[in-house]
């Protein structure tokens, strides 16, 4: 499903974010991506969504080399991915419902069908009763769950999460992880970056560890 082959990424200024990274993630697999901050976790996720492009090596998603995709094809790649951003990227000028609606509007979804889907997504993350609220009025954990609802409303086959439990206490973190596990059970491929040890203790989940841009084996 996701395949890195000898991927290098160097940022302008000379910082080498990723060095010779190679790995494969099978369809329906759930994988943790761990490492200290600055180890290249966010860069790796950005390469999958073609927010960044690799300097060398290939990044395949669904057997498609996303590093060489034309700009015009990027939107269609991203519609297949659910991305949970480290900084949430919620829109504060609209309520919870409309935040989740945005991906469906982008895909040109039928209006009535969209409403059902949005509510289903909000229900899954336990925010159904807050659909009229402004994101500002939500707690940190609720904002994170809203971000998840927006990522899954499109029913993507791949879910990328960048530090989804970043600033949450362990109780909230467990809730979030429970949500992810439920997606795993229905066959979604998940790649979750985190440096949270309590999350990583979760048994039976494969773990990729980055150290200064290199994958540890």
């Amino acid at each position, binding site marked *: 499903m996701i395949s890195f082959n000898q991927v290098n990424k160097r940022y302008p200024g000379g910082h080498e974010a990723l060095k010779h990274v190679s790995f494969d993630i099978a369809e329906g697999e759930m994988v943790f991506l761990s490492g200290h901050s600055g180890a290249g976790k966010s860069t790796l996720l950005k390469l999958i969504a073609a927010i960044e492009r690799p300097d060398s090596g290939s990044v395949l998603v669904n057997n498609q080399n996303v590093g060489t995709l034309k700009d015009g094809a990027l939107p269609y790649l991203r519609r297949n991915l659910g991305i949970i951003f480290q900084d949430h990227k919620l829109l504060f000028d609209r309520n919870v419902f409309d935040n989740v609606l945005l991906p469906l509007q982008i*895909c040109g979804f039928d209006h009535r069908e969209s409403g059902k889907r949005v509510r289903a997504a909000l229900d899954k993350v336990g925010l159904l009763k807050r659909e009229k609220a402004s994101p500002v009025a939500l707690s940190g954990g609720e904002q994170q769950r809203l971000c998840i609802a927006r990522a899954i409303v499109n029913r993507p086959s791949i879910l990328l999460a960048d530090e989804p439990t970043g600033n949450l206490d362990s109780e909230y973190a467990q809730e979030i992880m429970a949500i992810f596990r439920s997606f795993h059970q229905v066959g979604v491929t998940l790649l979750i970056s985190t440096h949270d040890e309590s999350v990583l203790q979760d048994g039976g989940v494969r773990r990729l560890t980055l150290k200064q841009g290199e994958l540890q084996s």
Partner: protein
Amino acid sequence: MKQAFAQYPRVMRNVLQRMFASRLAGFFNILVIGIALSLPAGLYALLQNAQGLIAQFSGSPQISLFLNMDATTGDTDRLHKQLTQHPGVGHVEFITRAQALEQIKQSNGLTDVIGSLNRNPLPDAFIIYPEQDGAEPLETLRNELAKLPGVEHAQLDSDWAYKLEALLEFGRLAVLVLASLLSLALIAITFNTIRLQILTQRDEIEVARLIGATNGFIRRPFLYFGALQGLFGGITAWLIVTAGLLLLNHPLGTLSRLYASQFTLHPLAVSDSLSLLLFSMYLGWLGAWLSVGRHLAQTDRCR
């Protein structure tokens, strides 16, 4: 494309909401656009009216040929034949000196004066209706006919109309220059308005692109906004021009009555009005397109 149509009502509603939210700033923008467009449009309307006036007075062009006083019937017959065979001449009318005198007697009430003359002072004359219209071919034809034997003087009757026509041509050029400059101004106004909007919606644009929005999706609301603002500006310009012409009509009516004529300014024709609206809409659209395009290219480079 199908998607664009399906989203039309939603996008349009959003755009109208946004317009209403900043209605004061929007009102002034539209006013500026309207005033800018009303200058060339108004000038154009005046020119159209002037042209109508000229057409009304000049009619079809004629060349009058006055013959020598001592021309004999044989001379005039030969000349008549020569003229009918000339390729540049469409139709010839011959007026004998006696006919001409009779006409003057009837029309001007100068019977006494004419009667007091002991001989007819008028020459025989031909009136030529040329095949071709236009200032230059007519002038060449006049010069040619003036050289024919027996012709004393050739006069182009609509000479003044052509001089005025040339002046109007100059006016039309001025309108074109003015319209081009102010169109650029209109594009600039829209460009800036949209740029400000983009800045306030930067987050939305960024998020939308990250979760799979095409450039078309990002552009659409801004393009609608630009086109709509241009359209409202065009409507404002039309109102200004129409109100201006109606206002001018009153003093002009008094003036034309003093010259014993009836002349009123006509408002912009329907086709011209539609062109004005479509053009201003297009310019607004173009300004928005340039503005969003620049922003998208800029953020692409930052990536």
